Every structure is written in structure tokens, then in C-alpha cells.
């Protein structure tokens, strides 16, 4: 049972993390293509059309893998997380289905016309097609993050004992979930930043090589402009996100910041230290006074809850959940008395905490004191991985923001092109956004443990009734298949990025004009 849960999680993490390498780039490049093509339509200059087409080629190579790995996600809830699908499909299925209708259809139907419609459509109509593709990707992210936001902070739902599942109570609560809104904007900005850093890096490489200078300069400038604007929103919304985490997911916040004890307000921020998970403390801390209190509570007088404190609170919630669990069967069979019904309703919001006990005992009513304490301790995600991945994310985001601001500043002053070190820095920064989004995903989703739906459905109950060996087999198949396709994708991406705009065969660029390398 344990093995099945672990391997299912591993498979989900693997397939989602790989999918999330392609999605942010799709989001970012689609925006950049809209900017470039708008410049073409506005100025009529051929070079902007060439830019749209060339970066569009790289976009296509990436997009194909996004579609491949995205298909898995649509199937995987059913194949590997069947109990989750039954338990929350009434709510979670809604944003997924609307995503299909409103966004994925739009993006996928117009993407073909983006590539094959250049000669069949007027300039303006083609730009409209490009806008619709970008709109589709953006709306897609919106609905997926509404779904994910609900897993983090499940609003607008009630438990129905007769159908043994969560049911949708308020669509507007689901839609306007503050966690979802902030996550959407934060993730979207991170995607835009990824696209900008990608174009910036490859353009810098052409500049270093002294190839297709005019093309590269303009691409670099567009990327720096887009990147600077979205850097601001990534950071602002990252901060907003932190505020919501502190409010709605205090366990996650405590793990991210390694807050073992509730400290006097305003709490200090630990920059770095040696995490000792067993002793429940951090050695050799480097602290900045006041800062955490300000970020997490936006005040000087509110406390930030510590892990030990949260475990005590959650132990009470486990006990409270058991009160609801006790009457679950009679509620389901509609045989509860008025008194039993009242107790059930009073405690039903803690039912999920009682379900945590199922990891240790078949029937939670027979749980020992030790089991209850263990279940309460389980509500805190592992501290060290959370602490460090979060810091990597913040460092990467800040570094990229600096790079973007400085690039834009020097482009505007006309001095960027002489700074070879800046070009080198821009080029070598290409892995940064990908590292940033991957660790960002990890912080959000690993930090949700031990739940699939925060406070309501434990991860270890959410899987399908499969054999661990089945899932091991599929995990191996996924690793082999994705590695093969990813290698092919990278091979083509490198080939076309090296080729540069000469890949368009217009006769105007480096490898076709026989220009010498004048760097």
C-alpha cells in the first residue's frame, strides 16, 4: 500500500515536472510572438515578420512536447488517482472541463493556422490568430490553476455522506478563490519570464557570434522589455502568494521558513541554516529581524505560527475529525438520529484529519494515542526540502529580474551591445527560469503534503486500487518514452537555435548570404 502511494506520487511528480518544462515556455513565447507580430503589423517591417516566424519555429518544437506531456495529465487523475477522482470530481472536474472548452480548443484549433495561415490570411487576421493562440494558452493556465488553487485551499464545497464525496457548493467561490487568483498570476508571470529569458539568451548568443546582428538586437530588446515588466509581477505576486500561504496553509509556511516555535511578533526571517528535522531546530541560523513577520502577516504585531504549535492544533483537529467519522456510516445510510447528525455536522470539516489515521489503522476509531500524535505530526511537510527549494526559487527569480532590468536599461541607453559580459551572462542564464519554475512547482505541491486536497483528503487515500508493480511498470515506460522524446526535442531545438533565422530560407540571413563571422 505504502509502495503504491509512493510510486504513484513519483510518477505524478515526474510527468508533471516534465510537462512543466514546456508549459511556461509556451506561455512566454506566445506572448512574445504576439508582441513581435504586432510590431510587424504596425511598422510593416519584414524583419519583425521573420522574427515572429523564427521564434515561432522554436515555439512549435516546444509546443509539440507540451501537447504530448499534457495528454498524460488529463488521463492520469483517472488512471492513477481514482479515489481522488471519485472524491472530488464533482468540483475538480469542472475547471478541467471548462479549460477544455474555453481554452485548449481555442489554442489547438488556431495553432495550425498560425503556422500554415501566413499566405491564406491578411496581416491583421493572422495577428488575430496569434492572439487567439496566446489567449488560449493563458486561459488554459487560468483554469488549471483554479483547479490547483482549490486543492491548496478547498473553498465552496461540502461533504455529502450519501455519495461519499465532496460536492460543489459555490462556483463563484471556486472561481474567485484568492489562492487560485494569485497562483495564476504568479505562474503566468513566471511563464512570461521564462519565454523572455529564452529569447534573450539565444539572441545574446547570436550577438556573441556576430551573426544576424539586426535580427538578434531587436529580439534581445523585445525580450528585455517583456522580461523587465513581468519580473516585477513575478516578485509582487510571489510576495502576495506568501501572504496567502501564511493565512491558509500555515503548515506549508512553517516548513518553508523552518519556524519550529511560534515566536514573538514580528518574527525574524531565517536566510540560511542547518535544518535538524529530528530535533526540530535550525542550527547556525542567519537571521534578519522583523522581515518574516512583515511578509507573512503584513503587520508588526501578529505572530507566525510555529511547527510545534501547529502540530498541537492539528492533534485537536484529528480528535474532532474522529467525532465526525464515528457517525459517517449512519449518516451515509440515512439512519442518524438528530443528535448524531448535529455532532457530525459540527465536526465534518475535520473529517479529513481523521482520515489521516487510515495510514496507520484500517478503522480510525481504533487509533491509539500514538497514532493520533503521529497523524498530527504528518500534517507538516518535510522542512529541509521546502526550506531550500524555496530559497533557490527566490534566488533564481531575483537574479533573472536583475538581468532583465539591466539589459533593458543598457538597451535603452544603447550600451548593451558593447558589453560582451552581459551577453555571456544572458546566454548562461538560460537554465535559470526552468530551474525556477520546477522548484516553484515543488514548493507548491510538496508543501501540500500530506494532502491531495488540503485538510480534506490525504494523499495516501487518493490512489487507484492498483498493484505497485503496475505503476512501477508504467513509471519506467514514462521515463523511457519521455527521455527519448525529450532528447529528440532538445536535438531539434539546438539545431534550429544554432541555425538561427537562416532556418526560414528567406535568403537574407547568415548561412545563406555567406557572410563572414565579424565578431
Amino acid at each position, binding site marked *: 500500500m505504502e509502495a503504491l502511494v509512493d510510486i504513484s506520487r513519483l510518477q505524478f511528480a515526474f510527468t508533471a515536472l516534465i510537462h512543466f518544462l514546456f508549459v511556461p515556455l509556451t506561455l512566454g513565447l506566445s506572448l512574445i510572438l504576439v508582441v513581435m507580430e504586432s510590431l510587424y503589423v504596425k511598422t510593416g517591417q519584414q524583419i519583425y515578420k521573420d522574427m515572429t516566424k523564427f521564434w515561432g519555429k522554436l515555439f512549435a518544437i516546444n509546443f509539440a512536447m507540451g501537447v504530448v506531456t499534457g495528454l498524460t495529465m488529463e*488521463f492520469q487523475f483517472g488512471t492513477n488517482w481514482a479515489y481522488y477522482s471519485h472524491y472530488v470530481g464533482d468540483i475538480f472536474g469542472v475547471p478541467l472541463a471548462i479549460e477544455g472548452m474555453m481554452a485548449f*480548443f481555442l489554442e489547438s*484549433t*488556431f495553432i495550425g493556422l498560425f503556422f500554415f495561415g501566413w499566405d491564406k490570411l491578411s496581416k491583421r487576421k493572422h495577428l488575430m490568430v496569434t492572439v487567439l493562440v496566446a489567449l488560449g494558452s493563458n486561459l488554459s493556465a487560468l483554469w488549471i490553476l483554479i483547479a490547483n488553487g482549490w486543492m491548496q485551499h478547498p473553498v465552496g464545497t461540502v461533504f455529502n455522506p450519501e455519495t461519499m464525496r465532496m460536492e460543489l457548493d459555490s462556483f463563484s467561490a471556486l472561481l474567485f478563490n484568492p489562492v487560485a487568483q494569485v497562483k495564476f498570476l504568479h505562474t503566468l508571470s513566471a511563464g512570461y519570464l521564462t519565454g523572455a529569458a529564452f529569447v534573450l539568451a539565444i539572441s545574446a548568443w547570436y550577438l556573441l557570434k556576430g551573426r544576424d546582428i539586426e535580427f538578434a538586437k531587436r529580439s534581445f530588446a523585445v525580450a528585455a522589455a517583456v522580461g523587465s515588466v513581468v519580473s516585477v509581477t513575478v516578485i509582487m505576486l510571489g510576495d502576495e502568494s506568501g501572504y496567502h500561504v501564511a493565512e491558509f496553509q500555515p503548515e506549508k509556511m512553517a516548513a518553508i521558513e523552518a519556524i519550529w516555535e511560534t515566536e514573538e511578533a514580528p518574527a525574524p526571517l531565517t536566510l540560511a541554516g542547518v535544518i535538524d528535522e529530528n530535533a526540530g531546530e535550525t542550527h547556525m541560523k542567519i537571521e534578519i529581524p522583523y522581515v518574516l513577520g512583515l511578509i507573512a502577516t503584513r503587520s508588526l504585531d501578529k505572530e507566525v505560527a510555529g511547527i510545534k504549535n501547529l502540530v498541537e492544533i492539528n492533534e485537536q483537529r484529528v480528535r474532532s475529525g474522529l467525532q465526525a467519522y464515528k457517525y459517517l456510516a449512519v449518516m451515509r445510510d440515512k439512519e442518524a438520529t438528530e443528535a448524531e447528525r448535529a455532532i457530525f455536522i459540527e465536526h465534518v470539516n475535520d473529517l479529513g484529519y481523521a482520515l489521516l489515521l487510515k495510514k496507520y489503522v484500517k478503522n480510525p476509531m481504533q487509533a491509539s494515542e500514538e497514532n493520533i500524535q503521529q497523524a498530527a505530526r504528518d500534517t507538516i511537510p518535510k522542512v529541509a526540502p521546502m526550506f531550500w527549494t524555496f530559497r533557490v526559487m527566490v534566488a533564481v527569480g531575483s537574479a533573472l529580474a536583475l538581468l532583465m532590468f539591466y539589459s533593458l536599461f543598457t538597451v535603452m541607453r544603447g550600451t548593451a551591445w558593447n558589453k560582451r559580459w552581459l551577453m555571456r551572462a544572458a546566454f548562461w542564464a538560460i537554465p535559470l527560469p526552468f530551474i525556477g519554475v520546477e522548484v516553484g512547482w515543488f514548493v507548491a505541491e510538496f508543501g501540500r503534503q500530506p494532502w491531495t486536497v488540503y485538510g480534506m483528503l490525504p494523499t495516501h487515500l487518493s490512489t487507484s486500487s492498483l498493484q505497485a508493480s503496475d505503476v512501477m511498470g508504467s513509471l519506467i515506460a514514462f521515463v523511457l518514452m519521455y527521455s527519448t522524446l525529450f532528447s529528440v526535442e532538445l536535438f531539434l531545438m539546438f539545431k534550429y537555435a544554432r541555425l538561427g533565422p537562416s532556418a526560414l530560407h528567406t535568403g537574407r540571413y547568415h548561412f545563406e548570404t555567406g557572410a563572414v563571422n565579424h565578431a
Partner: protein
Amino acid sequence: MLDYESLRLIWWILVAVLLVGYAIMDGFDLGVGTLLPFVAKTDIERRVLINAIGPTWDGNQVWLVLGAGAIFAAWPAIYATAFSGMYVAMLVVLFALFLRPVGFDYRSKIESPIWRTTWDYALFLGGMVPAVVIGVAYGNFLQGVPFHFDETFRSFYTGGFIDLLNPFALLAGFVSLSMLVMHGATFLLIKTEGVIQFRALKASRIAALTTIVLFSVAGFWIANGIEGFRIVSVIDYQAPSTPFAKEVIMEVGAWMNNFHQHPWMWIAPLLGIAGAVIVLLLGHKKPGFSWIASGASVTGIAGTAGLAMFPFILPSSTHPSQSLLMWDATSSQHTLWLMLIAAAIFMPIILAYTAWVFRVLRGKVTEEQIRDNEHTAY
């Protein structure tokens, strides 16, 4: 808000529309993929086939993604039970579908013949395997699959992958393959010319004939050999969704009951046969009409299976009374209502812009066009 019973019926129709929509819209892409090595011999011929569907296949595939999403939202218990129960089969379909997005986009980006031939076979598998396996899955639905629930509504599937490959299910797989090949071939009649069109015509005739024969055999088998399912208790159409509130028995020929009680339902199998007959007789004269006829045939065949099983979606062979119905495996009334509003808003918009895109991209794909656009065509 509409009453629960009507919403449940409407959602059965809507899911049927989405799945038939997939069979019609992406069905011909799967068919063309299957035909790729047979109808097109040289590199340029293959590029004609690939570019005939290249710009639109991605949008078409969304019918499947949306179908899965709609089943998740409207019938969560079915999404959970069917997808996890048929684990290996679902993954086989998924892995085959992986080959298409990359196949279309990457194949012609490198000139090496080995590279291109490899992708051609990948595209062939990406078309053929889903066409067969989806049919096999449906063949198993018709016979019932071994699953049951515990008191927390967790589903347990007690069969294996090999059990899915029984004779009737394989027959259903071939019905599905032949009808989609027919549908792909008629699409090629519209989009190609010359020798490719000629080969496509031959393929459409062979496939149409095979479809007629295999579909008839399957129908005869259903009526006389396969145990269908029948509800013997009273169903409360308004009750909360639970698989424990009814009694079901299995008996040979039970899938014919709906046709006996509602003779209008014979329209579906008749459409299935008539469409294929038209393809057989008129394909060479009227390609467009022929494609519509094969689409009608696909609709009729899928519709026959759906109507025969109504109101069953996923019957259980080991615990027939826990079979999942379109009455007792749905989401809440609230969710069905919301989703209906969303579908009413978005489906017409989707149909409108899909039609516009096909109109912009109308016209035949020729070898000359491919040569002129060597670096931009797929």
C-alpha cells in the same frame, strides 16, 4: 435549475456528442495515420498525407481531451473506475497518442530518410493503435468488466489486461479500425488528387465493405451470444449518486431490449450500414458527400453501441448490481447544471471557429505545394 433527471439525461447526450465528435473529427486523422504507409509510398506522397491533416489534427484531438474532461466532471465515478481499471489499455492509447504531436512537427525538420521513415511508422502507430484499442475497450464495456466497490465507494478492478483481448472485444476493435480507416480514406478523397486519391478510393471501398461485414457480425453476436444487462428494480432518477441502490441481472440478448421497446432506435444501425454503402458506391463521384456519409456511418455505429447499453455506461460482470448507470454515477445536480451552462456557451463558439479554420484551409494538398513550401510544410 433543471431537475436532476433531465440533467442526467442531457449529460448522457452531451458526452455521447463529445465522443462521437471525437470519432468524427479526429477519427479521420487516426484513419489517415493508419493509411500512411499504404496509400503514400514516396516521401513527397507521405508529406501530402501528413499536410492534409497537419494543420487541423491538433484541434481535432481536443474532442478527446474534452471528452475525458467532461466524463471527469459529469461522471466522476466512471472516469475513476474505467480509467484505473483499464490501466494498461489506457496507457497503451496514451503512449500511441504521444507519437502524433511530435511526429507531425518533427518528421520533416530533418532530411534523413531513416529519420523520416521512423516517424512515418510512429504516425502509423499513433493512428492505428488508438483506433483499435478504443474499439476493444468498448467491446469490453458491452460484455461488462470485473469491478466492484467497497463501502467507501472505492472501486476495485479484478481483471487483467489480457482478459480485455477476448474474441468479441477484438472484433469490436476491428469494427472501430475499419470504420475510422474508411473515414480517413474519404477525407483523403477530398484533400488529395491523382495517384494518392486513387489509392485512397480503393482503401475507402475495402474499409467500407469490411465495416459493413464486421459491424453486422458484431450485431448478430450481441443479439444471440453476448450477455447483456437488465435492471430489475425500480430506479429513482432523482436520487443521490450511489452504485448500491439497484438490482441488475445478466441475460443473453438483453442489449436488444431497447431496440424492441423503441423501434426508432433502429435508425442508428441502419445509418451505420447505409453510410458505408454510400461510400462504397459513390466515393469516386462525390468526395465531400462520401466523407459526410462515412461520418454518418461512424455516428450510427457508435450510436448503436450507446443506445443498446442505455442507461448503462459501465456494467460490472462480477457484481452486476453495482454497474454504473447514467442515472446513478453522475455529479451533483448543481455541477451538472453549471457544466450545462458552460457547454451551451462554448460549444457553439467552438463549432463556429472550427468551421472557419477548415474553410480557410480548404482546397487540395498537392505535391507541388509541398515542393514550393519545402521548409514550412510538415
